[in-house]
């Protein structure tokens, strides 16, 4: 997460620097308005535009990567597009408020359950690895066991 934030911040800095480069010939006074642009001005302006575009691309790319990372970790739930529900054919339909509330609650606590399950699995894996390392045997959960009946 940190590296993507750093990349996005670097993109922002370069975007601002590109804007400064476009304005610098006029701000610093070595390009007078109304006269032909010198080579120095042309270099500054076109390099500034290019760096601004690259900085913008970096910001978008790293923020998108950060969002994808958070979605994969289950910390962010992507919004699903609203799907047009088919109209009921005929007759009154009885609403089921209790069931709707339950499904909403399920969708709310699903990321939490996923995160807790991952933590439990990770702890169990660490404990198995530690026990196997201490006894010099492979972890009991990572290989097959044979049971004779």
């Amino acid at each position: 997460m940190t590296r993507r934030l750093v990349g996005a911040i670097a993109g922002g800095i370069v975007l601002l620097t590109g804007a400064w480069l476009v304005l610098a010939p006029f701000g610093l006074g070595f390009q007078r308005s109304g006269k032909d642009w010198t080579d120095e001005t042309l270099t500054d302006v076109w390099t500034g535009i290019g760096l601004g575009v690259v900085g913008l691309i970096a910001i978008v790319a790293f923020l998108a990567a950060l969002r994808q990372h958070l979605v994969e970790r289950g910390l962010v739930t992507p919004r699903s597009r609203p799907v047009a529900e088919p109209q009921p054919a005929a007759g009154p339909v009885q609403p089921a408020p209790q069931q709707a509330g339950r499904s909403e609650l399920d969708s709310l606590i699903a990321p939490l359950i996923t995160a807790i399950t991952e933590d439990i699995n990770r702890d169990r894996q660490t404990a198995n690895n530690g026990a196997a390392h201490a006894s010099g045997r492979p972890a009991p959960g990572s290989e097959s066991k044979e049971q004779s009946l």
Partner: protein
Amino acid sequence: MTLPVTTVTTVNTVTTVKAVNGRDKLGIFALVLMLLGGAWLAAAPFIVGYQSRGGHWPEGTRNEFFVGVGIMAVAVTALIVFAANALAEISHRPAHVRHVDAGDAGYVD
């Protein structure tokens, strides 16, 4: 008398996320372009020819040179932080899931 043998296999479920995804690669490409752009900006007064070597540097040349060096520094710093952080994340993973970062699969179950 031979008794039947039943094999029970337990698979530990480990879900992992790739350290560098496709959008990260685009961002890294942009950082490399920033590095090259900064180098170009610092060298442009001499390459284009409006600044003679050994002569006095006017304000425009100083501006381009130091802004170019600054952009290079920002890009290099971001690249180093990115690489170090990604390598640290990979090294902290269990050995049996590290191969995911070298392969195409995003998840291992």
